[in-house]
C-alpha cells in the first residue's frame, strides 16, 4: 500500500464559527454592510434633493421613523467599530521607521484617531 493523503473539506458557510478570531473578523466585515446601506440612503437623499423640496421633505420624514432611527444608531455603532478595528491595524500596513526604530503602533494608530477627531469637529462645526 502507499500514500493516500486525506483532505479535510472546510465548510464554506460555517468556518468562521470555529474560532473567536474568525468571528471578530466576520463582525468587522459584516459592519461594512451597514455602512454600505447608509451610503445608499445618503445617495437616495441627494437624489430626492435634486427632485425638489417636496420629495426631500418626504425623505426627511421617512428618516424620522423610529425604525430608521434605530437603523442609524446601529449603523453609527457599527461604523465606529469598523473604524476602530481598522485604525488599530493601520500600523501594520503603514509602519513608520525612524532611524533603527519603528514608531510604536500606538503613535501610528493614535495619529489616525487624532486626524479623525479633528475632521469630525471641523465637519460638525461647519455643519452647525
Amino acid at each position, binding site marked *: *500500500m*502507499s*500514500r*493516500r493523503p486525506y483532505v479535510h473539506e472546510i465548510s464554506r458557510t460555517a468556518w468562521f464559527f470555529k474560532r473567536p478570531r474568525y468571528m471578530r473578523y466576520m463582525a468587522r466585515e459584516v459592519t461594512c454592510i451597514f455602512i454600505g446601506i447608509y451610503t445608499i440612503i445618503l445617495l437616495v437623499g441627494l437624489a430626492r434633493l435634486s427632485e425638489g423640496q417636496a420629495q426631500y421633505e418626504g425623505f426627511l420624514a421617512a428618516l424620522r421613523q423610529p425604525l430608521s432611527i434605530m437603523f442609524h444608531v446601529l449603523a453609527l455603532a457599527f461604523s465606529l467599530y469598523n473604524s476602530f478595528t481598522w485604525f488599530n491595524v493601520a500600523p501594520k500596513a503603514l509602519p513608520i521607521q525612524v532611524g533603527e526604530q519603528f514608531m510604536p503602533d500606538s503613535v501610528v494608530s493614535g495619529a489616525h484617531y487624532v486626524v479623525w477627531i479633528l475632521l469630525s469637529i471641523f465637519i460638525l462645526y461647519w455643519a452647525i
Partner: protein
Amino acid sequence: METFKADVAIIGAGGAGLRAAIALAQADSKIRIALISKVYPMRSHTCAAEGGAAGVVKPDDSYEQHFHDTVGGGDWLCDQDAVEYFIHEAPKELTQLEHWGCPWNREPDGSVAVRPFGGMKIQRTWFAADKSGFHILHTLFQTTLQYPNIQRFDEYYATDLLVDDGRCQGLTAIEMKTGQMRRFQARAVIIAGGGAGRIFPFNTNGAIKTGDGMALAYRAGVPLKDMEFVQFHPTGLPNTGTLLTEACRSEGGVLLNKDNYRFLQDYGMGPETPLGKPELKTMELGPRDRVSQSIWHEIQKGRAVKTTWGDCVWLDMRHLGEKKINERLPFVRDICISYLGIDPVAEMVPIRPVAHYMMGGIHTDLNAATSIPGLFAAGECACVSINGANRLGSNSLVEILVFGHRAGLSALEYVRDQKPGNDAALASQGEAAQAKLRALFMRDVGKESIAGLRKEMTDTMGEGVGIYRTAHGLTETCNKLADLRRRYADVALHDKTNVYNTDLLSALELGSMLDCAEAVAVSGLERKESRGAHQRLDFTARDDNKYLKHSMAYYSQTERPRIEYRDVVITTSPPGVRDYSGAKK
C-alpha cells in the same frame, strides 16, 4: 526499484550539503545534482546555531591570530595545512553569504559587525543576532531555489552507499512518504549528514543528529578520525539540554558556584575580570573544554548547586539588566522561562555541561575526499581536521561553508573523467540493501525495544565517556556497547506501515548511533593521555610522544573497531602550552 540518475548525489541538506550543492550548480549549469535529506533542508540542525561564525575581517586582526587561536584551541591536534586553508577561505565564504542576503549584524557605517567568542583572542565572530545558524541555513536554502539543476529529495533517508569497482557510485534511500526504497546512481557522492550528539543522554543536538552520515562511510570502510573528542558545552539547561549560547558569557554573564564565587579563577583562567566587563580568552571567555572541566571539578568538590536535574552551577546574567538581555539575548530569556520557569533578568539560571559537538568524523583530506574514490564528506560529519582536540566556538559554521564548497568543487573535478558505472552490479547492490530492510520490516516483534536500547546506549555513554574518563569506565562502556550492538540484531518494529514510518527510521538511526558510539568509546579507551576535550583521570598529561596523532577507527561488523594512528600535520606551530590566564594581558 525506481532509480534516479545524477552526476553528484549529496546526502544532507544542512549548511554543508547546501553549500556543496550551490558550488556545483554555479560551476556547471549542466551538472545534475541530487540533494537528499531526511528532513526538509530548513529543518537541518544548522538552524540551531546561535552564536556566530569566525572570519578575519577587521584591521586589527590577522590570519596568523586566527590560525594560532584555532591550533592552540585544538591542543595541537589540528592538521595545520587544513587550518591554513580554512582561515584564508573563511572571510570569503562569509562575504559570499552576505552577497546572498544573509542579514549579518552591522556597524553604524554599514560594514559587518563582529563579536567576541570563547577562545578567540580578537573579535572576529560574524553574527546575525542570536540566530546566526538559522540565517545561514535559510540564506543557503533560499539561494539553492534559483538553480534548476539542483533536484531536491526531501524526506529521503539514506541507508547504504553503493560501492562498485572500488568507487562510490551512489546510494539507496527510503522515500519516507511512500516507504519505498529508491536507488540513486551517481558518479560521486558527498556526505554532509551532520553530527552524532544524540549518542549522549544529555545533549544540545536535534533529533536528527544520529550520525547516519558517519555510519554510512564507516561501514563502507572509511575510517572515523578522532572520534573520542566530543565537545561539552558549559552552559546547557539542566533539564532539556537546550543550549544557552556562549554569547550569554561574552555579553557579560558569569559562572558562580553555590557560594556565589567565580570559580574559573581557580582553574588557570584568572584573575577575575570585573563584573560586566568580560575579557577575551580568559575567565568566562576561556575555551569550552576548560570551562566545562572546571565545572566538573567544582561539582566533585561539592561546591555545586543541587537541583532536581542534577548538580549544576549558576549562570548569572542579572547584572546585564532587562534592556540588554532583551536586546542581545531575547531567545535565551524565552527559553529559560519556557523550559525552566526562570527569568534570567531576575534570577540566576542553573546550568550544567552538555554534549554538543563531535570534533571527529569521517576522515577526509584537504579536498574533502575520503579514502574511497568518488566519496567526499564535509561538515560536522567529517574530520579534515581543523578542530583538533577541541573546536573553538564559531569555527564550525565556517567549516561547513569552506569545506562544503571544497567538497562540491572536488566532486565536480572528479566526475569530469568518470566513466558510467556497471548498472547491473549497482542494481544488485540496491536489491541487497532492500532485502536487508525488508528483513527488519518483516521481523516479528522481538524482545528488544528501540527506545529501551537507545536509553541503555545513552546511559552508558554518559557514564563512561563524559567530560572525564577512566580506563575502567571506558572499558565498561565498550563492553556494554558491544553487547548492545549484538542485541540490536534482535530489534523489531511495531509499526508495519509503509507511509511515514518513524518507527523504522528510529531503528535505523539507532543502528548508526551504536556504530558511532562504539568508535567514540574505543578510540577514547585507546588514547592514554589527556588532550583538549579528551580528559583521562588515569593519564592526566598530554603525551606528544605517543599521541600527537589522529586516531583512526576502522569498522568491523562483529568486532569492536580497529584503531590505527596517523600523523598530525604540523607546519608552523609546534605543540605548546595552552594559556588562558589573563595575567600577561
